[in-house]
């Protein structure tokens, strides 16, 4: 089955929007509804849309890096966020915040870093599964 042209063009515009929306969701997760998990899922829908509307190759090209690389990256960020507390002599995962605000995240600290890790891990896992399933179907 040839993908429809409208869906294909539409997906190209939708994908960056979904990516933006996912960053928005992820960046507010530590104080408001949202978070790394849902953010990662929304980001991967963008790439999944590309994969189905256009081709898996197009989606992989848009992602630039191997989807599997995001899994250790995300988990390492999450692990690293937990270890920070050891430098202050506190138990694993104790929350610390930067004293100033930064763009996008506003407040940035241990929970936000953990969320960022979850974001990448979810993105990596979801896309690896989707790309594998889509490739085997063809």
């Amino acid at each position, binding site marked *: 089955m040839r993908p429809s042209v409208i869906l294909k063009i539409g997906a190209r515009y939708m994908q960056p929007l979904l990516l933006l929306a996912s960053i928005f969701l992820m960046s507010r997760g530590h104080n408001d509804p949202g978070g790394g998990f849902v953010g990662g899922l929304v980001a991967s829908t963008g790439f999944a849309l590309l994969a189905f509307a256009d081709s898996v190759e197009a989606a992989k090209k848009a992602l630039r890096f191997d989807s599997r690389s995001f899994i250790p990256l995300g988990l390492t960020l999450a692990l690293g966020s937990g270890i920070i507390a*050891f430098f202050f002599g506190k138990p694993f995962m*104790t929350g610390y915040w930067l004293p100033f605000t930064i763009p996008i995240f506003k407040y940035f600290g241990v929970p936000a870093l953990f969320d960022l890790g979850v974001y990448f891990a979810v993105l990596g896992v979801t896309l690896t599964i989707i790309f594998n399933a889509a490739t085997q179907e063809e």
Partner: protein
Amino acid sequence: MKIPLIILPLLIPLATALLGVALRRHAAAQRIVSGIGSLAGLAAASALLYTVATQGIQVMQAGDWPAPFGITLASDLLSAILAFMTAFTGCIVVLYSFGSINEDKTLFGYYPFTHFLLFGVTGAFLTGDIFNLYVWFEVLLTASFILLTLGGSLKQIDGGLKYVVLNLISSLFFLTATGILYATIGTLNMADIATQVALGKHKTIMLTISLMYIIAFGTKAALFPFFFWLPASYHTAPVAVTTIFSALLSKVGIYVLLRIFTLIFVENTAFIDGLLLILAGATMIVGVLGAVAQTDVRRLLAFHIVSQIGYMAMGLGLHSALAIAGTIYFIIHIMCAKSALFLVGGVMRRITGTFDLNKMGNLARTRPALAVAFFVPAMALAGIPPLSGFWGKFQLVLAGLELKSYAIVVVALCVSALTLFSMVKIWNKAFWKPMPPDSEAAMAAMPPMTGTELVCMGAPIVILGLCTVLMGIFCQPVVEFLMRASEQLLNPAEYIRVVLGGGHI
């Protein structure tokens, strides 16, 4: 910088697994990382065990949220002993894998997932929060499912499917029971649950919940009548994987039963203990009868796992200090002896090219060292003095006689005789009888073992064999130490005090 000791046995396997995933294209680098990671994990777990033994129960409140609001990690002697045994088994299996896991499986992520499995199992032993325990079970279940189907042969997928479906059903029971518990009591911290349950306001519902937990963890531990998944799936994986499963997975189920029936559900003990004893007896008998009927080495040993789980449940059902110490002793003994037997099975397969006992023969003459390596753990499993299995069974039987539970004692002794019978069966078929003429060609076709294979596959077997001998000879100090662990379990006031009493790191 101050790192709480209790979290190190968790962080090290996780970091090792992550490094392994990052290096997934380099088989040699993965082996090095995996080896160093396992040794570091063993060092951390030994340090934890030493600290718990000398300074008492260790607690960490994750995120510095005070109990019961945050997630608590807590390690008493039982947790520390089992975390140590997990790290030890990890080292042994990783060493064996160097000689037995091929390049393909390594590139598929064998080592990282082994460490994820160790991460999940250790987490289950160290957590003090019942929902967190559920999460650890998910971690270890996911990792074990991947390890079980690694390589993706049809037989493995078939076994893996049974494994995952039955384990998910038991997880569902676990989750439902935890949900009801949370709705009734409003806390998930195990020490806090224990104080609330002790008020005695919810006796009927607690009985229901504890029965649901018996179903959930009875399935995980492979107790009768929930054991079917184990013999259906374990023999399909590579030997190294089967070994780590047999040493760790069902023991996590037994550990949780030990924990909740000494800490939380201490009412209605007579009824629950009676039920556990019946299940224990049935598990022993069905397991050993299943084993007697098998001719595939791995299937035979898989049925024995079930049978031995019965002994552990027996100790819990008897519920005296001696019996629980006997259960812990038995867990350690099985982790050594049963792992050694699986590993010997792997070497037998490597030499003869088959797991089928009918197609083997004459190994005692052609491979005398292997015969000794089999004989020691096999006799330990059957319970021949002075090896470890004898003292384990001796403690359990003694505890049974003290409590006048004669029926279970008779069952335990008969099953022990049948265990000896099936070990003798392996001995006769694989080591003594002459080689069947038609399988000589198959054996000759196997390439001779290389030096690396010989060291990597041989050394773990020798170490485990020595452990069963040493545990038997130095039985007295070991049992005294385990009695301390057992007393700690039966008097949970100290555990509750340390967890809830603002015990910051």
